[in-house]
């Protein structure tokens, strides 16, 4: 069956050259039958040898999902999605248990190389002295195929596993936290994810541990017609610290692909989680054909006193982005941060922002959002700052800036402020501007091409956010901004 499916899938792929990373690799895949039903969910659960409670959890979500409706409030024109016309499970057929990436299927390795993934990781794998340590849990389509550095991490007591493994090996932790930040019924896409999530990452940092390296997962959508439904759960126990990097590129696809991930973060007393994302999925071509539909639910709970969750995102990809990394600031003195650059070009649509829910006393939050619109795209910042009546001395500062390149795109700002405690200090500022002719003229008089000048100015505009990223990511992100703007200037 899989052979036939595979061919069918491969045939659906239209190879085009505009997208640098638009290639597909020939790795044998096994698919769950197309479409979504309780049987699909039982199949996924069985294939992953999940315990009964997990299957029940999925089925409960599925039944809830059947009664839910798609989200319509975002400033997005979403073509109707046929949820039955998609594969909900695909995994590489050869499923090696590897100690290192060297033992990986060479085809997968080549895929990574084309993606430019192994910047630092390759060096580390090759044993290059002094290379920065980054642990990679690679999600190739839906199943983790390699986890590196497990030993060093386990020495520190850090659990860094695919979520399927975690369900088997640490069911007590997964049961305790899964769905505790993003409940199954939170929204249509999160509910779908709860029912069919194929794989993802689980991280647990024990009390008092500073994670010895940055943790990193590369997501990659590979097989045609496969929705991706990762599930990420990161728990930072008391007084611990972890920095997690998520980066993604997806190969060229002619038809639109659905992606509905859920990320849950939990920070206990004095813990800190730094979560950085560079999202560069296929945005569709210059005519607006194809591209990924990205409906992501990301939420962190600052449960402990003085805990901190910091989201940084650079969003340049996807045809449709629907994403609001949020913080629930329950702990006294907890801190939430959101730094975002969202760039849209051609026919891309992005509706992204954050929610800061202040529940704990003395909690603070900072929001810095930079939206860049070019081509015929639409870019919306949508955010909520809510201060509950019991939350004394809350501070929030929000800055949303929009930059328009050209007169056929749109830049929108939709902030919600809801305050119920008089001791709160909430400030929100927003501006909209374009690149001034003076700036361009100056940069070009110094010998830069028009395109480089624009890229330079855009990078300057986004600097506050980019400098929040870990270094390798910052470099990659800067390049991405330039690449994503190609063709939009002139």
């Amino acid at each position: 069956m899989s052979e036939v499916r595979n061919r069918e899938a491969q045939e659906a792929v239209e190879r085009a050259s505009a997208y640098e990373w638009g290639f597909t690799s020939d790795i044998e895949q096994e698919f769950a039958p197309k479409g979504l039903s309780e049987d699909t969910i039982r199949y996924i659960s069985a294939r992953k040898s999940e315990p009964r409670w997990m299957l029940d959890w999925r089925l409960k979500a599925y039944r809830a999902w059947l009664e839910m409706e798609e989200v319509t409030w975002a400033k997005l024109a979403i073509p109707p999605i046929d949820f039955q016309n998609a594969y909900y499970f695909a995994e590489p057929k050869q499923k090696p248990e590897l100690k290192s990436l060297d033992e990986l299927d060479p085809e997968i390795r080549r895929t990574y190389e084309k993606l430019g993934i192994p910047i630092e990781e390759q060096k580390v794998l090759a044993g290059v002295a002094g290379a920065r340590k980054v642990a990679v849990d690679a999600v190739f389509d839906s199943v983790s195929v390699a986890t590196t550095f497990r030993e060093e991490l386990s020495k520190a007591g850090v659990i860094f596993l695919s979520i399927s493994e975690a369900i088997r090996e640490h069911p007590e932790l997964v049961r305790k936290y899964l769905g505790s930040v993003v409940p199954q019924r939170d929204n249509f896409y999160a509910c779908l994810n709860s029912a069919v999530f194929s794989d993802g990452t689980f991280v647990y940092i024990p009390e008092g541990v500073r994670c010895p390296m940055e943790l990193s997962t590369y997501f990659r959508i590979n097989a045609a017609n496969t929705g991706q439904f990762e599930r990420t759960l990161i728990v930072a126990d008391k007084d611990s610290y972890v920095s997690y990097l998520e980066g993604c590129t997806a190969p060229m696809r002619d038809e639109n692909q659905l992606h509905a991930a859920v990320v849950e973060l939990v920070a206990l007393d004095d813990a800190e989680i730094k979560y950085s994302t560079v999202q560069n999925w296929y945005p569709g071509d210059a005519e607006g054909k194809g591209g990924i539909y990205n409906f992501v639910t990301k939420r962190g709970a600052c449960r402990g006193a003085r805990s901190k969750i910091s989201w940084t995102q650079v969003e340049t990809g996807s045809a449709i982005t629907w994403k609001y990394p949020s913080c629930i600031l329950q702990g006294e003195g907890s801190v939430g941060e959101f730094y975002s650059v969202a760039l849209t070009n051609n026919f891309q649509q992005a509706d992204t922002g954050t929610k800061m829910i202040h529940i704990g006393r003395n909690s603070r939050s900072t929001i810095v959002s930079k939206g860049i619109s070019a081509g015929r795209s639409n870019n919306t910042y949508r955010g909520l700052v809510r201060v509950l009546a019991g939350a004394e001395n809350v501070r929030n500062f929000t800055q949303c800036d929009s930059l328009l390149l050209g007169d056929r795109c749109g830049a929108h700002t939709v902030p919600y402020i809801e305050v119920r405690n008089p001791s709160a200090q909430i400030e929100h500022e927003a501006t909209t501007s374009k690149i001034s002719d003076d700036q361009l003229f100056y940069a070009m008089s110094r010998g830069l091409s028009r395109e480089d000048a624009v890229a330079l100015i855009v990078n300057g505009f986004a600097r506050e956010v980019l400098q929040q990223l870990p270094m390798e990511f910052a470099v990659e992100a800067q390049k991405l901004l330039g690449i994503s703007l190609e063709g939009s200037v002139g």
Partner: protein
Amino acid sequence: MTALLLPSNRDEAWRWSDVSALPEIAARQGLGTIPEALPWIDCALPGPRLLFVDGRFVAERSDPGVVAVGPAGVDPGGHALGRLAGREGWRLRLGRDHAPQGLVQIVHVASGGADHLAAEIVLDEDAQASVVETFVGDGWANRLSGIILFRGARLMLARRVLAAAGFVSLTDRATVGEGASLVATALAGGGADTRLDATIRLAGEGAYAEAGGALLARARQRHDANLVVAHDLPSGMSRQVWRSVASDRAACSVAARVEVARAAQKTDAAQSLKGLLLDRGATINAKPELEIFADDVKCAHGATVGELDRDALFYLRSRGVPEAEAKALLTRAFVADALARIGEEAVREAFEADAEDWFLNPSPLAREGGARREAVGG
């Protein structure tokens, strides 16, 4: 009365609204009593005066002048409350270069029940008018106003809601032509709940619009303003200045949107939404929204929510000003920003005095809790 079809909180434009008191008020009958004293503003030049009690024109207490009483043609554009307004009401139509003498004053008295009125203001090229509407009494006054300003026309429109209890809903649909100017200010300073809706289109080059006001709420009152300023053509300018004060368990909400169309290059739009919370349990909601499709524009908004500046309070206390007075002083200064936009001195002074009254003499009905008349906890 047939069943009222009211919007729910699930509707984005009614997210923070509470219209639950309306069916009950709509079922009541007004007593039709005309108060002895009416809140006319004294001006050097007496202008047209119109009195409506429960939506009925009271000719013997009015002097309509250029204002006509009768049907007004306003398209409610599907607005949930505006479409209830019907056609009866008043019209102010001014020919080219005309301006009525003095201030046009309209007083609306509610005596317990619900009433609906439409109004039409059409100013031809370079015509000019100043209109003040005042709402008093107890009931539900529902108004729909259509405003058209042709090239170079100027309208100052000021509304004050001083009603002791009940609900006042105003729905404005305005079109501002080339180089024309609309300055609309609202003061919600009584004990009634309010819903203030406005859609202002800047449909000519260089059109100018200001829309703002002061919302003062206590007990369980709710004020809810929902505005759209749409820039359709180049070089328009708009300002939205809102100041909200909420105490006890009251809530003030302002959702203000600026829309800039593709053609509206060189737009200059600014929003300033500020909220002041005087008690725990009170709520300020704000949604300063921008929707921009043109690149050569200057659009900015700022929003802040907080309590009175502690340093300023401390300073005043240290100068011997009693705490209550110091708070009132600072709160007044906060609100003054929004009322300062009113150009006519007599009107501005009247509005400032009403705000002052609100601070000094909370009406007993307001203390009992606005439209819902619930007991207040603290």
